[in-house]
């Protein structure tokens, strides 16, 4: 999950164009971004760093080779506090909105989830962590206002829904993330993928999860805004760590085969079509202990049982021309109507080739099958491949 790519990055721009940035919010790290030489762009209502001095390509490669620090404070951090005082009740309530087993989510663990609508489409994707007294939820920046309204309207009777606007969110990702964070927050190296914990540091506690949006091992760190800049500086003081902007965040998640809300998933895509069935545990499926009971369950359970009509796949274009979002896909080199569309695409710096994700009919969604994408009026071949494009390195 995450809120990475903005319209400006996807749009066809001419050199020298820039974007007005009035009325935008800033994160606690805004001044630090400028000091680090970031190029700032509007994203989901925030002024965010799209890249720093290294540029997108080198930032991407640095994160894969060593460690990268991301400011993701624009994302929504929400505490769902059960009015009964029993976190089990918050889990039961939230299960009404997501097709995920939260009752079975153990203390100190986190799960990927999605809010669905009555048609089985996806309203947003999110992370849900179970803690002693609450569920801690992280939401996409662009959706957070609507998500919070949705939570109030649907489960406001059972839970206090508290947006934690006094906290920043940093991500430290890459093979050296563990060693770096361990120096400041001893104990993080004992965590495994999707664990969450409150870790004491000399400057106070941090809320840490071992997760991220890059396909790399790493951590997301929630910190009070007044301590965020100091923490970022401490992390950046390690020579292994470079600041990474939204540009590389997008290419990293794309290589990792991770969905970007508003692009690869939205209200018109179901979790099964999006190849996210792995996120729907047995307890919520047909015949499970708490079968259904979430918006769009009829369609989503039917698709889990008998398959969806289309599916999200990985695409490797031949040659070097990227097939970007919106590229129409055809089953043949000439003639016929489009059979699908690219939802994310660009150049994968670690794959050293263009990579895309697309929706295609299931009968065409075969590994190794060839499709053609229309790029500037020419149909160029691409092969359907298994996702991710690059194996993840999570510490499970």
């Amino acid at each position: 999950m995450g809120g990475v790519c903005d319209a400006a990055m996807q749009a066809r721009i001419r050199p020298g164009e820039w974007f007005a940035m009035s009325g935008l919010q800033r994160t606690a790290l805004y001044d630090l971004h400028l000091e680090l030489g970031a190029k700032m762009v509007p994203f989901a209502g925030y002024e965010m760093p799209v890249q720093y001095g290294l540029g997108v390509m080198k930032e991407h490669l640095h994160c894969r080779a060593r460690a990268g620090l991301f400011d993701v404070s624009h994302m929504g951090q929400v505490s769902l506090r059960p009015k009964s005082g029993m976190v089990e009740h918050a889990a039961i309530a939230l299960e009404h909105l997501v097709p995920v087993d939260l009752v079975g989510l153990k203390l100190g663990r986190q799960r990927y989830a999605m809010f669905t609508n009555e048609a089985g489409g996806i309203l947003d994707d999110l992370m849900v962590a179970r803690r002693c007294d609450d569920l801690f939820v992280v939401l996409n920046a662009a959706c957070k206002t609507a998500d919070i309204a949705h939570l109030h309207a649907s489960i406001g009777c059972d839970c206090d829904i508290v947006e934690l606007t006094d906290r920043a969110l940093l991500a430290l990702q890459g093979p050296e993330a563990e060693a770096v964070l361990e120096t400041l927050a001893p104990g993080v190296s004992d965590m495994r993928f999707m664990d969450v914990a409150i870790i004491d540091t000399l400057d106070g506690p941090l809320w840490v999860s071992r997760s991220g949006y890059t396909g790399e091992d790493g951590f997301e760190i929630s910190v009070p805004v007044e301590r965020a800049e100091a923490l970022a500086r401490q992390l950046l003081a390690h020579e292994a760590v470079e600041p990474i902007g939204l540009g590389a965040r997008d290419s990293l998640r794309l290589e990792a085969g991770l969905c970007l809300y508003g692009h690869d998933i939205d209200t018109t895509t179901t979790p099964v079509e999006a190849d996210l069935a792995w996120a729907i545990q047995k307890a919520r499926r047909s015949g499970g202990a708490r079968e259904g009971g979430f918006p769009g369950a009829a369609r989503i359970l039917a698709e889990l049982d008998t398959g969806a009509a289309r599916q999200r796949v990985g695409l490797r274009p031949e040659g070097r021309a990227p097939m970007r979002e919106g590229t129409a896909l055809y089953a043949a080199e000439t003639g016929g109507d489009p059979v699908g569309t690219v939802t994310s695409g660009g150049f994968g710096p670690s794959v050293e080739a263009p990579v895309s994700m697309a929706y295609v009919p299931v009968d065409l969604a075969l590994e190794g099958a060839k499709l053609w994408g229309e790029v500037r009026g020419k149909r160029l071949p691409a092969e359907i491949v298994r996702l991710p494009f690059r194996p993840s390195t999570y510490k499970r």
Partner: protein
Amino acid sequence: MKFTEQHEWLRVEDDLVVVGITDHAAEQLGDVVFVDLPEEGTTVSKDDEVVVIESVKAASDILAPLDGEIVEVNHALTDTPAKVNEDPTGDGWFFKMKIEDLSALDEFMDEAAYQAFID
């Protein structure tokens, strides 16, 4: 060297106009990963889209600065598009064109005017 408002530079070599993008444009574009060059021998009109540059961020068009004929393109960019970032005003050139009258270049900005334009 002359400059267009589309951030191209134009340089006359052997009566041909060599066209590339400026340092400023290359920096704005970010890392270039693919360059789609025109065919040699193509006749173009001013403002025709003749080159597509794909960077890690987006696709951008390079427009023909003048009417003329594309007589040579920089094939090296096909395999090493990064040359556009490494040396935009040298090895990163895109194409050479033949134009009727080289005095047409006079209408474009000189270096000082271009600096003022981007500042």
